[in-house]
């Protein structure tokens, strides 16, 4: 059994506990204010259910978009060097720093009917704004930096030594990527995807501005919460608890995936394989 080599200084534990309380206490305070009698009817109301389903659907799609485009972006940032790379990396961070509402406006300026690509999209018969697609785009826009940045860091940490070994063994770029690079950073990829999913799930400002708030089409749970708050702040808090629970479930599930299977017991060689060798 491997030891924890150097346990942590005690005051580190104290600081961590304070930090933990800072995050946990507000959640406790929220839970304490929930009116549990009205909780069940509220969260099972048709609008709440529709919003939750929409939220899950769009967040999952947005996370997939983030993976599809974010992994290549992280690879390019970590594995190539070109003029302007530094600036590009900063730009990728920006959706993080833009107030979401402004992000939504920027998306409207780009994909809206009068936006930069509006003409092109209209010619193609695509109408994005105020559709579920717009929700997914807003969520992907704000969630992309999380995936890119956490993956890029992991790629740099892992380094290129194993990739180099793979190349000398005759692997193509694609094989190196598929069988070495990505498996090595899988933990970071998963946690980046979880971060993205969480951010997409909580996304509100950009969606409201870019996609509007139409029940069943674009009104995700955070928008539903926002509207509830107009009339009944406590109901809004109760609805938020659902978000919290969903997030905990997803994060918990993601951490259950043991990508390296490092602790799997050694299996004996499969009989078929043995035979293949014997007849060799």
């Amino acid at each position: 059994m491997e030891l924890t080599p150097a346990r942590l200084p005690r005051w580190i534990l104290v600081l961590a506990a304070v930090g933990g309380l800072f995050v946990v206490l507000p959640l406790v305070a929220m839970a304490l204010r929930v009116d549990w009698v009205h909780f069940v009817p509220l969260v099972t109301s048709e609008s709440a259910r529709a919003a939750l389903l929409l939220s899950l659907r769009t967040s999952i799609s947005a996370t997939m978009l983030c993976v599809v485009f974010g992994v290549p972006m992280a690879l390019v940032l970590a594995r190539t060097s070109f003029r302007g790379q530094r600036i590009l990396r900063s730009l990728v961070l920006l959706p993080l720093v833009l107030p979401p509402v402004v992000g939504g406006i920027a998306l409207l300026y780009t994909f809206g009917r009068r936006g930069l690509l509006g003409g092109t999209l209209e010619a193609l018969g695509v109408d994005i704004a105020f559709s579920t697609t717009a929700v997914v785009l807003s969520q992907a826009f704000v969630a992309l930096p999380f995936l890119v940045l956490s993956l890029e860091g992991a790629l740099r940490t892992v380094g290129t030594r194993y990739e180099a070994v793979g190349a000398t063994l005759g692997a193509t770029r694609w094989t190196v990527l598929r069988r070495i690079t990505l498996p090595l950073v899988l933990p970071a990829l998963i946690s980046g995807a979880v971060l993205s999913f969480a951010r997409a799930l909580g996304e509100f400002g950009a969606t409201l501005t870019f996609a509007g708030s139409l029940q069943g089409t674009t009104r995700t749970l955070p928008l539903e919460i926002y509207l509830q708050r107009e009339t009944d702040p406590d109901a809004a808090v109760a609805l938020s608890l659902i978000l919290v629970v969903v997030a905990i479930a997803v994060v918990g599930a993601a951490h259950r995936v043991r990508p390296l299977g490092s602790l799997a017991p050694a299996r004996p060689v499969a009989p078929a394989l043995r035979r293949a060798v014997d007849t060799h």
Partner: protein
Amino acid sequence: GADETAGSADTTAHSGGGSITVFAAASLKEPFTALADQFEDAHPGTDLTLNFAGSSDLATQLVEGAPADVLASADESTMERVRGADLLDGEPVTFATNILQLAVPPDNTAGIASLADAARPGVKTVVCAAQVPCGAAAARLQEAADVDLAPVSEESSVTDVLGKISSGEADAGLVYVTDVRAAGETVLGIAVPEAADVVNTYPVAALAGSQDPGTARDFVDFVVGDDGRAVLEAAGFGAP
């Protein structure tokens, strides 16, 4: 565009039941949800979709080309922006009014009874920022009542003001009558006499880009009509 309006005008003739999208200010959520249900009942086959957001969000969306048929805004300046972009089908109609009230926490620990009390030093008063309609109204009210509030915060929406009061964080705030009513027991409303002079009006209009101008105009009429009046009055809105 204008020719689009012309093209869609004849679709009205044979539209027994169309489907329209109504953009409404977030503060109208309750009455408009009820109104939409009633309208759908009254016009079988009609399908109404509601989009609620802050008035200025709605304006931005419309200016950027959002497809909608009716706009119900919480202030006139927003409607003006949309009209300026040449997006209205006809003139806006005022369908409701609203006035400010002083809101305090239910236990009223600071002992607020009048607007002057809210201006006392040590009393934490919150109002809307001048940029938003309720803030403009609050400024006018202070002028009318000759009171100079020193707010600890100038919020960006009525909801934020209300949140500060209902949570007990602030001792008093200026919000609309309807908001006090909607908030139920979480805040206490105190009428301000001078508020009657500072009336906020809510305009509604059908939009030029509508796919179903007939139904859109029908809905505007419905909101302005007796059925609409009843629902809005129940929510605390005044008559135009």
